[in-house]
């Protein structure tokens, strides 16, 4: 079923926010193709009338008591941030040039 081209790997990498090098794209194109061909056999037995399982132990509407608890320590969170400024996470600009 699968046949992964170089262009598709580039597209997947873009979707997954991975800035791959050219060498990596070549390397992964072959490997992803082999893996996907191998896993595609799930469709051999996936008949239409079989319900899907998303979770091993079925649970619905799990509630807990709504009690006030302290949040994370602000200074400890700040210490783990890659950039912190004026009591906030500092992030790069969020809009592209165009």
């Amino acid at each position: 079923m699968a046949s992964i081209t170089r262009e598709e790997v580039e597209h997947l990498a873009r979707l997954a926010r991975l800035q791959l090098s050219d060498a990596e794209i070549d390397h992964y194109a072959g490997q992803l193709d082999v893996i996907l061909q191998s896993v595609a056999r799930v469709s051999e037995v996936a008949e239409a009338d079989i319900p899907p399982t998303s979770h091993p132990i079925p649970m619905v509407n799990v509630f807990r008591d709504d009690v006030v608890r302290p949040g994370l320590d602000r200074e400890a969170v700040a210490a783990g941030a890659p950039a912190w400024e004026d009591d906030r996470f500092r992030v790069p600009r969020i809009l592209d040039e165009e």
Partner: protein
Amino acid sequence: MAVMEHDLVRQDAATLARAMGDGEVSSEEVTRAHLDRITAVDDRVHAFLHVMPERAIAAARDVDRRRAAGEPLGPLAGVPLALKDVLTMEGEPTTCGSRILEGWRPPYDSTVVERLRSADVIILGKTNMDEFAMGSSTEHSAYGPTRNPWDLDRIPGGSGGGSAAALAAFEAPLAIGTDTGGSIRQPAAVTGTVGVKPTYGGVSRYGLVALASSLDQAGPCARTVLDTALLHAAIAGHDARDSTSISAPVPDVVAAARAADVRGMRIGLVRELSGEGYQAGVSQRFDEAVGILTDLGAEVVEVSCPHFEYALAAYYLILPSEASSNLARFDGMRYGLRAGDDDARSVEEVMALTREAGFGAEVKRRIMIGTYALSSGYYDAYYGSAQKVRTLITRDFEAAFDKVDVLVSPTAPTTAFRIGEKVDDPLAMYLNDIATIPVNLAGNAAMSLPIGLAPEDGLPVGLQIMAPPLADDRLYRAGGALEAALVDRWGHLLIEEAPSL
């Protein structure tokens, strides 16, 4: 015989706890002995990514002080433990074996750590693992591989190779692992140690950095079945902070390990988890162990689980799909690595550069497979079909457990392979988990315990016991009986035959 007359690091947790309770030895002495052992051997084994001697000794002294004051303490109080580096411990590094989290210190404890601390277990350090638990050899750690104490040129299994190697190298008598597709059981098998994946939801996932949320489960690792049960009892149970945590009493695993009795137990051999692809010595030791279980009074029958042959394919769609979503949080904005932030690049560019620099090859492979499987046009054929296979596998288990109490198989198809042998061959690597994956897909409980050395290479072989959800105690009842019979035959635990390093 007083425990102090022996090397403290070779004692099991139950023995150490009893000796501390009797005042023969202090927790500080026990803790120092293990820290000394780590100093002596870990440059060769590399089980640990981080050791916390000051904090461990302070905790041990606190236990000793409270014991002297007559305070009632738990059954594992003062016993040292190695913690897999995928569980948060406040203020201590938690890397998940990844560069992207290098230097990050979590501001909170995982529930597992909270329970270990309230049980007065002494946490020695954080153990090495395949990056974000993706792997079966610990070679995919960004910080270098862990080595198997039985043969330093071989892998200790994965992803929890650090935890298993710490046990086999006598650096700790207890360890915590996590098991998404076999990451507790396969390392246990190839290092001659014991490991249990509890029923899904049996141990809280709060503070466990997520790989595949519907499969991940933390669990106990040790050198004996009883120690594993004691640790299981310490960490298991409902937690309101994990919505998938099971709100039911934890089965009495300690009593089951002590009972160690298979008389009248119905044990099923899974036809699909044997034969072709299994190393000769693995099959031989497995057959012998089944013979012992029969001699002990179990009723052994063969059962068929016809859809297990599709489990590997389903797993390598479901896991990457969930992982690609879970790992989206590593975007370089709130914690961990940020790369390429030069005040000119946009947030999107910085995210892509950060993830490129911070993730290793296997993580990138799986993120892309998951992204592909979830993308429109492919979703039904891949992820949707895999979820249906998951239903078929659960039905196979249900049908089998109508006939038998537990199922058994070899834990892994081979003994420990050489470092480097499969590292860039993903499909060959994935085959290591062929016998362990069905349990994760269905949410069952399972154990691996050592059953001997393969004659052809002298390396440990593990037997897997699988029980229905919430019947974790059956693992310990059967595992305890088999372990006792093997110790009776050998005169000691298998791990006693490991090289002295």
